[in-house]
C-alpha cells in the first residue's frame, strides 16, 4: 500500500474497497470482546472457519472476528447477515446450523433471544430488548469491523472526518466546532474538552502533545477497553483531528499491558495508519506532521491520573504533581499536553463529520452526546451499553439491564468506581447527566454502573472500595497514604462488629482532612463513596455499631 497523498485518493480507496465487496457475500461477525473471549468465543470462530472451509463457502460467507458487540452476558455473541440476526450463547455445535440458515436467508432458532418471562423471540439487533433502548453511535460499528483491518474502518466511512477537517477547516474552526458541540470529558471529570484543547493550543510552547488515556483502572469499568480494542481507528482518527486543531506534533496512547488483544489491535492500528498515510509526514497532503507512540501502564491505579500518567510516559514512577500549573500548559517534559479519555477522542470524528448542531441535539441540557456505560454487578444483563446522556437510570437497569438477577430486589446502584458513590434504589429515576449525578453524590466517573441487590452489605462495599484505594495510593503525600489507612482501620472494625460509639465522627474528620489536603484526585475523592454512604445508608453503620456495643457483633453479612 502506498501512502495516501490527498483526500481524493482516500475517497478513491474507499470507493475501491466498497466496489471490491461482493454484495451477495454475507458476513458473520463473531465477538472477541473480553467477556466473549473468556467464554471461549475463539472456539466458536474456529468452528466457523472450519465449517466455511469444509463446505467451500469462502465466496458466500465472510467470517469477521470483531470487537465487543455489547451484550456480554449472553456471550459468545454472533451477528449474521445483512439484517443483523443476533445469536447468543453460541457454542461450536451451533455453528453448522447458523451457517446453513444464513446461506438460506433464514434464522437458526435455537440461538436467538427469548424473553425469559414470555418466551417471545427477538431476532434482529433492533428488536432485542438489550439493544432496542440504546443509541450506539460509538459502538454500533463494532460488528462491521475487524479491528485489525483499516480497510474495514474506511469502508464504514472511517477517516472521512479527518479528511474533512484537513481539507476544508482551519484548526481554529475544528476547535470551535468541538467547543460548540460541548463535548465533555468522558474520563471522570466531565470537563469541557474544547476548553482543554484551547488551553494547550494557546500555551506559548511550540512543542505540544496529545494523549489518549486508555488506562481504565476504575473497577467495573470496561467500556474504554472495548472501544479501543474493537475500533482502534476511531479513537486514533479523533486524536489526529485533535492534534490538527491543537497544533501537536506528537501523540501518545497510554493503555493497559495486561489485555493481549488490546495491545495487538492498537499496535496494528498505529502501523496501518502510518502505512496508509494517516500518521507521519504531510498527512493527506495537508502539511500536517503527526506521529503516535504507544505506552503501557504497568499496574497501578494512580497512573490514570493525568500528571501521574505523564510522569509514567516520561519513564518515571507515576507520582502526581500539584496542578497550580495545569498539565495542558506544562505536561510531558514540561510541554503543553492535552489528555483526553478514549471515549472522548472517539466522539471527535462524528462531531466533525456531522457537525456540532447534530451532536448537541443528542443528550440532556448540559451533557451532550451518548455515554458508554459498563453495566455489571447483580444485574440480569451485564455488558456495555451506549445511551444518550439524560437517559434515566431506571431505563439502564430495568429496560436494558433486565433488572436484578435471581429474583431479588434492588438495594442500590453504584457509579464511578472507587471514587464514585452509591445511590439507594429510590433514586434511580435520576438521569445519566454529569451534573445531576455529581449533585446526588454518585458522579458518573468513567461510566461503570454497578447494580447491588437487597443482600448487599453497604459497609462491606465501603470497606472494599477503600481497601482498593489504600493499595493503589502512590504514597507521595501523607494525607492520602495515612488518612486512607486510618479510615480503612475504622471501617474494618465496624464491618467486623468492633465498631465504637464515636467511630463515625472520627471517620468524618478523616474524610474531611484527607480530601482537603491530598495532592491529586485519588486522595481528594477517596472518601466520596463513604460520603455518599453516610448520606444514604448511615443507619446501616449506626445499627452495626449499636449491635457491637451490646455484644452482638453481626460481622460481615457478605461472607
Amino acid at each position, binding site marked *: 500500500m502506498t501512502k495516501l497523498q490527498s483526500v481524493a485518493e482516500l475517497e478513491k480507496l474507499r470507493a475501491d474497497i466498497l466496489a471490491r465487496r461482493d454484495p451477495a457475500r454475507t458476513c458473520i461477525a463473531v465477538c472477541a470482546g473480553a467477556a466473549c473471549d473468556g467464554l471461549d468465543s475463539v472456539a466458536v470462530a474456529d468452528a466457523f472457519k472450519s465449517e466455511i472451509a469444509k463446505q467451500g463457502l469462502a465466496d458466500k460467507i465472510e467470517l469477521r472476528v470483531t470487537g465487543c458487540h455489547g451484550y456480554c452476558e449472553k456471550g459468545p455473541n454472533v451477528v449474521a447477515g445483512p439484517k443483523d440476526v443476533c445469536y447468543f450463547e453460541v457454542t461450536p455445535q451451533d455453528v453448522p446450523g447458523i451457517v446453513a440458515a444464513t446461506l438460506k436467508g433464514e434464522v437458526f432458532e435455537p440461538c436467538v433471544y427469548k424473553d425469559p418471562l414470555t418466551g417471545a423471540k427477538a431476532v434482529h439487533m433492533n428488536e432485542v430488548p438489550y439493544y432496542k433502548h440504546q443509541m450506539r453511535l460509538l459502538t454500533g460499528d463494532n460488528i462491521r469491523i475487524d479491528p485489525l483491518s483499516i480497510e474495514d474502518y474506511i469502508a464504514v466511512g472511517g477517516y472521512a472526518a479527518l479528511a474533512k477537517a484537513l481539507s476544508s477547516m482551519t484548526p481554529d474552526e475544528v476547535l470551535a466546532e468541538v467547543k460548540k458541540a460541548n463535548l465533555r470529558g468522558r474520563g471522570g471529570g466531565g470537563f469541557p474538552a474544547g476548553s482543554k484543547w484551547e488551553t494547550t493550543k494557546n500555551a506559548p510552547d511550540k512543542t505540544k502533545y496529545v494523549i489518549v488515556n486508555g488506562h481504565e483502572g476504575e473497577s467495573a469499568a*470496561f467500556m474504554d477497553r472495548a472501544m479501543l480494542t474493537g475500533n482502534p481507528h476511531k479513537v486514533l482518527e479523533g486524536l489526529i483531528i485533535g492534534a490538527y486543531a491543537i497544533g501537536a506534533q506528537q501523540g501518545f496512547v497510554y493503555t493497559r499491558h495486561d489485555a493481549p488483544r488490546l495491545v495487538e489491535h492498537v499496535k496494528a492500528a498505529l502501523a496501518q495508519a502510518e502505512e496508509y498515510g494517516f500518521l507521519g509526514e504531510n498527512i493527506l497532503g495537508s502539511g500536517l506532521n503527526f506521529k503516535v507512540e504507544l505506552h503501557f501502564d504497568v499496574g497501578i491505579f494512580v497512573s490514570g491520573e493525568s500528571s501521574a500518567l505523564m510522569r*509514567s510516559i516520561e519513564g518515571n514512577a507515576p507520582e502526581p504533581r500539584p496542578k497550580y500549573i495545569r498539565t495542558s500548559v506544562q505536561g510531558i517534559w514540561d510541554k503543553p499536553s492535552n489528555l483526553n479519555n478514549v471515549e472522548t477522542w472517539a466522539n471527535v470524528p462524528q462531531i466533525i463529520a456531522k457537525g456540532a448542531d447534530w451532536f448537541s441535539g443528542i443528550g440532556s441540557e448540559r451533557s451532550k452526546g451518548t455515554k458508554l456505560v459498563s453495566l455489571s454487578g447483580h444485574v440480569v444483563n451485564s455488558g456495555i451499553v451506549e445511551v444518550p446522556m439524560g437517559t434515566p437510570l431506571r431505563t439502564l437497569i430495568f429496560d436494558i439491564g433486565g433488572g436484578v438477577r435471581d429474583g431479588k430486589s434492588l438495594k442500590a446502584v453504584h457509579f464511578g468506581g472507587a471514587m464514585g458513590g452509591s445511590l439507594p434504589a429510590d433514586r434511580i429515576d435520576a438521569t445519566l447527566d454529569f451534573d445531576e449525578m455529581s449533585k446526588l453524590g454518585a458522579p458518573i466517573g468513567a461510566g461503570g454502573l*454497578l447494580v447491588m441487590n437487597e443482600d448487599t452489605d453497604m459497609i462491606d462495599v465501603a470497606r472494599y472500595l477503600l481497601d482498593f484505594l489504600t493499595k493503589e495510593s502512590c504514597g507521595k503525600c501523607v494525607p492520602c497514604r495515612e488518612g486512607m489507612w486510618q479510615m480503612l482501620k475504622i471501617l474494618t472494625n465496624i464491618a467486623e462488629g468492633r465498631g465504637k460509639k464515636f467511630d463515625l465522627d472520627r471517620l468524618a474528620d478523616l474524610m474531611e482532612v484527607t480530601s482537603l489536603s491530598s495532592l491529586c484526585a485519588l486522595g481528594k475523592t477517596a472518601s466520596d463513596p463513604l460520603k455518599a454512604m453516610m448520606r444514604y445508608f448511615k443507619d446501616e453503620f449506626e445499627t452495626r455499631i449499636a449491635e457491637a456495643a451490646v455484644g452482638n457483633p453481626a460481622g460481615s453479612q457478605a461472607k
Partner: protein
Amino acid sequence: MCEKVIDGIIDKYRGRPGAVIHALTEIQHENRWLPREVMERVAEALEVPFSQVMQIASFYKTFSLTPKGRHEVHVCTGMTCHLRGAPALMDKVEELTGLKPGETDADSRFTYERGSCLGSCSIGPELIVDGKHYGRMTPDKVEDVLKRYE
C-alpha cells in the same frame, strides 16, 4: 532463562533513558521476573542510575523481583467480582494451593496473585490461569481448573 532475548531487548533501548519502563515491561513479559543483574545491565545500557531502575521495578505492580512459578493463578478482585463471590473463590484457591497473594509454592508450580479489574466483569467472578480466563467460577470448580496445570 532466555538470555539472548533479554540481550536483544536491552540493545533495542540502549542509550534511551526514557525507555526504562518499556525495557522492563518487555523483559518481565519474556522472563516473568526481573533478576538484579538484568536490572543492572538495563541501568548501564540505558544510562540511568540503578536506583532509578529499582524505583520503577519496585513501584509498579507488574514487575516481580522474585522468580515466579510455572503457572500464574490470578483471582480478579474487581468490584463486580467481589460482589459476585470473589472472596469465596480466593479462600478456595488459598486452601488448595496453601498460598497467600503474591506467594509462589516450593515446587514453583503456582504463583498466586489477586488484582483488579480485568474488564471481564460480565462473566465474573473469574479465575485467570496463565492469561486464560475461566468465567462464572464457583469455589467447587477451582480444583478441576488447577488440576490442568502441572
